[in-house]
């Protein structure tokens, strides 16, 4: 029956407790007299490394400042909101477009206009890519600075095109041509009755559907974002296009057939011939030897070309004790050196055009990064309001029904119009830029 070995237990308890206390007592070199600013961000280990380098860069330029990194490998907004409630948010806060209006209306972010006015000369706002600064303007005031972003283009698997003897898509192609190519590329390779190779895989979620709606001349919300604008023939035509691709032409896999499979994998494994994806995946795609691929501009619809762009920003906490030092950190990120660090990662695109040209677009790879830059000209950000949380759920529900064939495009548009209007009626809205 073994008695509990008291001495051994006691010794290991003691060791454990002292380790515990030891960890608590160590503080990362508490240099006296230095100003500490905290910076919260999300991402994977790749981003962690990036920010370590950025921190080193900043501390080199400002030796009296120490940057404390606060990394959240998940659930970033949950933690951020807890910090807002307890007034412990970091001095520099990474934000994206999703909850930006919500945080602004709750007055968590500092008005950056004074800092922007007295900014250092090299920070030329004209150098910023289009739509980036507007993405972080709330009611005419800038509350965050964009620092990176991405646009989306069509990636395609060259090997599959070669196999079918099809010409590669040209930049001036249309959605109709896209459709025909998809049909030609959808095949049952091993004759078992199940299709193994699909022409394309356009999502039915809000973010995937909106570029098509724009390409057809439709809009998600009205210009002042106070009402939904989806009940229009253009929108219905766009939804019909995707609907037909799935249910009539059957060039897309069934819902979730490829669930869990990351975008780049879908192309890499040859299951999908053409995909809309962000420059973000370039990093993973670059090392691939198994197949040849390339990017091409998004096809044009009746109203021209449209793609989605998205920006990440850096804001200063409204209750920060060191707003000026926080702004300085933002400037470091936006400086040539800072943007170079970002560009060399080749994931998201630096927000300054000059940095993109010098450090993001390289000649080493055959893939055309400059196309992502060109796409910025016809890219638009998603229209976000304070009602984003609720609206997102409604959009997901209705579009899901469309994707399952439970409703028609006309019904979906009508339902969305009704429900989104209801939600927006509860909120005051922002006014920014053209119709989204």
């Amino acid at each position, binding site marked *: 029956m073994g008695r509990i070995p008291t001495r051994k237990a006691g010794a290991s308890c003691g060791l454990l407790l002292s380790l515990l206390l030891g960890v608590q007592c160590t503080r990362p070199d508490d240099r006296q007299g230095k100003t500490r600013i905290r910076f919260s961000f999300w991402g994977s280990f790749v981003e962690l490394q990036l920010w370590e380098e950025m921190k080193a860069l900043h501390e080199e330029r400002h030796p009296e400042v120490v940057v404390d990194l606060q990394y959240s490998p*998940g659930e970033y907004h949950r933690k951020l909101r807890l910090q807002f409630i307890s007034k412990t948010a970091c001095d520099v806060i990474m934000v994206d477009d999703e909850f930006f209006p919500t945080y602004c209306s709750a007055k968590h972010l500092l008005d950056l206009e004074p800092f922007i006015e007295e900014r250092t000369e090299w920070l030329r706002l004209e150098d910023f890519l289009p739509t980036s600064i507007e993405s972080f303007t709330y009611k005419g005031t800038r509350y965050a600075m964009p620092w990176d972003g991405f646009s989306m283009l069509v990636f395609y698997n060259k090997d599959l095109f070669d196999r079918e003897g099809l010409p590669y898509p040209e930049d001036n192609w249309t959605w109709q041509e896209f459709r025909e190519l998809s049909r030609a590329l959808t095949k049952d390779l091993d004759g078992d009755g199940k299709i193994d190779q699909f022409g394309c895989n356009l999502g039915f979620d809000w973010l995937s559907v909106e570029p098509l709606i724009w390409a057809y001349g439709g809009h998600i919300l009205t210009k002042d974002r106070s009402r939904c604008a989806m009940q229009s023939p253009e929108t219905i035509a766009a939804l019909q296009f995707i609907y037909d691709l799935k249910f009539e032409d059957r060039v897309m896999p069934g819902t*979730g057939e490829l*669930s869990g499979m990351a975008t780049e994998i879908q192309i890499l494994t040859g299951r999908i011939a053409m995909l809309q994806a962000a420059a973000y995946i370039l990093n993973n795609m670059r090392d691939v030897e198994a197949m040849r691929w390339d990017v091409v501009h998004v096809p044009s619809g009746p109203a021209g070309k449209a793609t989605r762009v998205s920006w990440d920003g850096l804001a200063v906490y409204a209750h920060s004790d060191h707003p000026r030092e926080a702004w300085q950190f933002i400037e470091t990120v936006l400086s040539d050196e800072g943007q170079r660090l970002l560009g060399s990662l080749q994931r998201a695109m630096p927000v300054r055009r000059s940095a993109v040209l010098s450090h993001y677009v390289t000649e080493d790879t055959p893939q055309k990064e400059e196309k992502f830059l060109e796409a910025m000209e016809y890219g638009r950000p998603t229209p976000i309001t304070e009602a984003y*949380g609720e609206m997102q759920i409604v959009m997901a*529900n209705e579009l*899901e029904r469309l994707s399952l064939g439970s409703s028609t495009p006309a019904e979906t548009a009508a339902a969305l119009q009704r429900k989104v209007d209801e939600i927006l009626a509860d909120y005051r809205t922002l006014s920014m830029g053209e119709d989204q």
Partner: protein
Amino acid sequence: MNSRGHWRKSVLRNLEGYLFASPWILGFLVLTAGSMLFSFSLSFAEWDAQTPLREIDWVGLKNYSEMVKDDELFYKSLYNTAYYTLFSVPLRVTLALLLALLLNQKVKGIAFFRTVFYLPSVVVGAATAVVWSWIFNPSYGLLNGLLHRMNLFLNWIHLEALRIPEPEWLLSEAWSKPALILMSLWGLGGSMLIYLAGLQGVPSHLYEAADLDGASAFRKLWHVTIPMISPTIFFNVIMSIIGSFQVFTQVYIMSGGHAGGPNNSTLVYVLYLYRKAFVELEMGYACALAWFLFLVILVLSVIIIRSSALWVYYEGERR
């Protein structure tokens, strides 16, 4: 002993009880009671979980009445959760017991087998999602692959009539909950372990006596094992019910967030609550939902606890 002596004895007795229980009582008062009160009061307010607390909007019973009168997702999520609980609790409680009985034998390598059965409940969250999406994938997944092969076999021996359906699992409204239930059964390891521990406490002399009386394996199970481990069964039943009503993490990672499955078929109650609290930023409403759930679970548990007097046997009972 005179009455004063009795009184002293009982005071000491009570003090002792409190003393031993004091770690928990202290922890409760400091940590838990406060947060329970906090969330209870919040259920009578509207708050978006980020504006300062003094700006809360007190609305009385509005959350509760809206919940019961206007909210169809409230009922839907209750239904989803009840469905899930109804199937997974009995399955879990009985299957874990059967497994534990199987693993309670002194065969060689039993430790290895026990580990294998315990393993699935241990893989960390996000990794689980990747694994299970692969298993349940309608076209390329493991499960449908197996079913397909079985169907081919049935075809081959001309028993097509017995064809097994190859459902879309998590992507079909009808099969998404069964998929979740199946997934939860893989996590049996914990319950099984508890049963195993309980089985160790059954005195062997009872089995010997039963053998002498010529009892069959089944009778031994029914008349010796089960009564003797009824405290463990009681534990597993209560914990399974509490756990099933609060199922969240699995569903959250499988839906990749707050989505809730095709037509909200896997929108379980706590997922809906989470969505209200952290996506739609209606913390007060979420607290109302939480306390309703609390009430439901409490009532159910009390019923089971009261009934336990009838079927749970404590060898060391001293009333």
